[in-house]
């Protein structure tokens, strides 16, 4: 059901409606008690007043209960009960009206209790007054219409309620002014005073439910007219009642006659109305003043607010401008990409310059789509961002619009704008730095190669100094010694004998010098012409040269050059190396085994190696590892052991930037491994 007023007034309104219902039910109960207990004062307020009939009291109880049901009951059952109650009310009042008009007795008047008093006064005993019956009928009809969906019915119901109020009001005034029980007034005066008050309460309360309809709408509402109506109407009613009461009193006491009374009351009414008007006017002006002040205050507040908003907007714009400046003119490339879609949301000028794209070409597109980075790399970036929350100093290669590679350093952070996650990446172009780095790396590498070469040469020089010390000093000291003896010798035979020894030493010295010169020549020939050589061909040549020894020793030689068939190397060196190693393998064969020699070439990560394995007598490397490749170092009592072959081989291999090493076991065999181009 609609409840008047909104918000805070709702509860108060409901409470006053409930109070109205109770104020109607209570007099009814009191009257019924009065009827049963025969206490007249409970049915009529005063001895000479008309009493509230039993049926009237019952009807009020029904009416009040129905009103409560209408307020509180929302279920279908309560609606049905409400309709039944209203129907009962309609039947009782309707029957009473019929009784009153046609002077019949249908037996409802004293159905519950007898009314001897009315019978004594010559009135129909226990019968409800016509006005009361009429009012109940109107109320029954209007109550049924209050909740109706039809606006017209609602309006009619509201008018009926007003009619009830009017009837009750007139009856009350009649009592107040003690209007004589004349024929003309009997319709109103037959209603008991408590009945009239009850009608007044219930009809006003019920009219308040549809407060925006009929006369009620005059007094409800917040507009100035409603305020005036609320203020003026009750005062005017009171004054009029007061004036009427006074003039009637004065006339009855014969202090004044009728005409003077009318003039006096009219005059007083005009004066008091004027006063009331003045009073109301003042109040209204005060209200108006308050409103104007409030308006002005609002206006001022508005103005302040506007200037504040303006200032804030300006501040925001300034900070935005500053940010844009920092963002755009930053030499570091900055890009804001949506984490979900990967689309560029914003980019600065630096990144446009780096990648040669225009802003429009980037924004709304993804780096993967433009092939700036691979989709895998982007996924990797997102994964690390989600895992660590940032990306720090990652080196990455970006492709610009024309496919040029840019070496960049990337830092990224995750940021959130209006609930969307973004990746904020800072990109530094390190292409130039990278170039310099690469150059440096290359320079460093060539320097390293040079250092290696120098170290090698230095080592060879040291080695050479060592050789000179050992191999040249001894013949020279021998010459000195012989010369000493020669000077001291006295006989011709002795001198001749010494001379023979001189020859041996000079010959020895000559050979040693030749060998050293040969070694020096090799070391000097590091830039010897290299050509593409076949291991197979070189091996065949070696075999031809050693044919005699191979046949004599019955050596079995196997060769496998399939893994690395070719080499770019000085021809004479490769021939010399292979000849020396193979002939050594035959020379130092085991007396008890048929020599088996295996040659294998390999290419291990670009390092070309030659391995020559034999099953010969082997060398005690524990003892000889320092001297294995030394000049004039021999390890076997062998007629042909001169200690020259391995020295020359090593010199040749090292001159070309390679290494030679050996593993051996006495009476098992030896393996020489030549790495031609040590990395």
């Amino acid at each position, binding site marked *: 059901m609609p409840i008047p007023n909104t918000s805070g007034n709702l509860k108060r309104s409901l409470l006053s409606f409930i109070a109205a219902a109770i104020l109607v039910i209570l007099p009814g109960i009191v009257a019924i008690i009065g009827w049963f207990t025969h206490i007249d004062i409970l049915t009529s307020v005063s001895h000479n007043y008309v009493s509230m009939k039993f049926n009237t009291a019952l009807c009020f109880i029904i009416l009040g209960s129905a009103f409560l049901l209408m307020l509180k009951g929302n279920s279908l059952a309560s609606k049905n009960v409400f309709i039944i109650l209203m129907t009962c009310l309609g039947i009782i009042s309707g029957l009473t009206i019929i009784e009153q008009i046609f002077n019949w007795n249908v037996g409802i008047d004293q159905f519950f209790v007898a009314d001897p008093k009315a019978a004594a006064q010559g009135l129909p005993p226990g019968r409800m007054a016509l006005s009361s019956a009429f009012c109940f009928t109107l109320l029954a009809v209007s109550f049924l219409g209050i909740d109706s969906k039809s606006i017209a019915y609602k309006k009619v119901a509201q008018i009926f309620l007003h009619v009830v109020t009017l009837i009750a009001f007139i009856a009350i005034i009649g009592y107040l002014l003690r209007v004589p029980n004349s024929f003309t007034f009997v319709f109103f005066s037959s209603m008991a005073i408590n009945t009239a008050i009850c009608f007044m309460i219930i009809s006003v309360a019920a009219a308040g439910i549809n407060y925006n309809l009929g006369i009620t709408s005059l007094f409800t509402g917040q507009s100035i007219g409603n305020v005036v109506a609320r203020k003026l109407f009750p005062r005017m009613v009171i004054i009029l009642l007061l004036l009427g009461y006074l003039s009637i009193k004065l006339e009855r006491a014969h202090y004044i006659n009728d005409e003077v009374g009318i003039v006096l009351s009219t005059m007083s009414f005009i004066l008091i109305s004027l006063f009331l008007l003045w009073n109301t006017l003042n109040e209204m002006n005060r209200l108006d003043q308050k409103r104007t002040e409030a308006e002005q205050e609002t206006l001022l507040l508005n103005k302040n607010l506007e200037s504040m908003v303006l200032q804030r907007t300006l501040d925001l714009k300034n900070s935005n401008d500053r940010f844009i400046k920092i963002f755009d003119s930053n030499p570091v490339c900055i890009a804001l990409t949506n984490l979900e879609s990967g689309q560029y949301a914003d980019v600065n000028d630096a990144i446009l310059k780096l990648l040669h794209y225009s802003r429009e070409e980037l924004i709304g597109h993804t780096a993967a789509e433009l092939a700036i980075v691979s989709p895998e790399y982007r996924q990797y970036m997102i994964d690390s961002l989600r895992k660590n929350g940032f990306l720090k100093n990652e080196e990455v290669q970006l492709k610009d619009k024309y496919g040029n590679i840019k070496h960049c350093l990337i830092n990224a952070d995750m940021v959130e704008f209006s609930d969307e996650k973004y990746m904020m990446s800072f990109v530094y172009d390190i292409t130039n730095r990278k170039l310099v780095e690469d150059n440096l790396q290359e320079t460093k590498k060539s320097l390293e190669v040079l250092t290696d070469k120098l170290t090698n040469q230095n080592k060879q020089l040291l080695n050479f100094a060592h050789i000179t010390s050992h191999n040249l*000093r001894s013949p020279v000291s021998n010459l000195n010694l012989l010369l000493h003896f020669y000077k001291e010798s006295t006989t011709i035979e002795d001198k001749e004998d010494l001379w023979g020894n001189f020859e041996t030493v000079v010959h020895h010295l000559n050979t040693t010098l030749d060998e050293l010169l040969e070694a020096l020549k090799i070391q000097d020939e590091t830039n010897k012409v290299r050509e593409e050589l076949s291991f197979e061909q070189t091996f065949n040549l070696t075999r031809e040269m050693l044919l005699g020894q191979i046949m004599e020793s019955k050596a079995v030689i196997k060769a496998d050059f399939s893994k690395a068939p070719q080499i770019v190397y000085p021809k004479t060196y490769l021939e010399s190396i292979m000849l020396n190693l193979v002939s050594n393998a035959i020379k130092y064969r085991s007396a008890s085994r048929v020599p088996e020699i295996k040659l294998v070439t390999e290419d291990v990560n670009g390092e070309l190696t030659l391995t020559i394995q034999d099953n010969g007598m082997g060398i005690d490397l524990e003892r000889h590892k320092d001297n294995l490749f030394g000049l*004039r170092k021999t390890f076997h009592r062998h007629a042909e052991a001169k200690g020259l072959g391995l020295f020359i081989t090593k010199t040749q291999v090292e001159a070309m930037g390679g290494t030679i090493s050996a593993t051996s076991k006495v009476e098992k065999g030896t393996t020489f491994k030549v790495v031609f181009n040590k990395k």
Partner: protein
Amino acid sequence: MKKPHTLCFIDDDEIYQYAIARSVKAHHLAEKVLVFMDGEEAMWFFNDNVNNNENLPDIIFLDINMPIMDGWQFLDEYLKLKPRITKPITIYMITSSVDPVDYEHAKRISEISDYVVKPIKPEILKELVEKYTIAN
């Protein structure tokens, strides 16, 4: 004071051997001279005569640079054998090497009494033998 009975020369240089033989003869430095062309040959002899003090030399003149077994390797083998030898034997390192590495090496071995750089003139050989004579 005792003159050495037997001198031992381990050197692959034939001319050196010839010169030594002349010097020993000329100055009557010893009764007997043993000559070996390399360390291994010498070791064979020492192994064979480890208990035969009469055959063992009093002084060894040891060369460093030799084929098959050089002076250092001989010393290693000799030191292994030494506990079994009862006769005191003086060792001189005689070499054409002026390499400081060799000299330092020789200084660290207490069995080496002296380090002499070739050529060994007869006077130097005489001095070395006399040094032995005085010491004993």
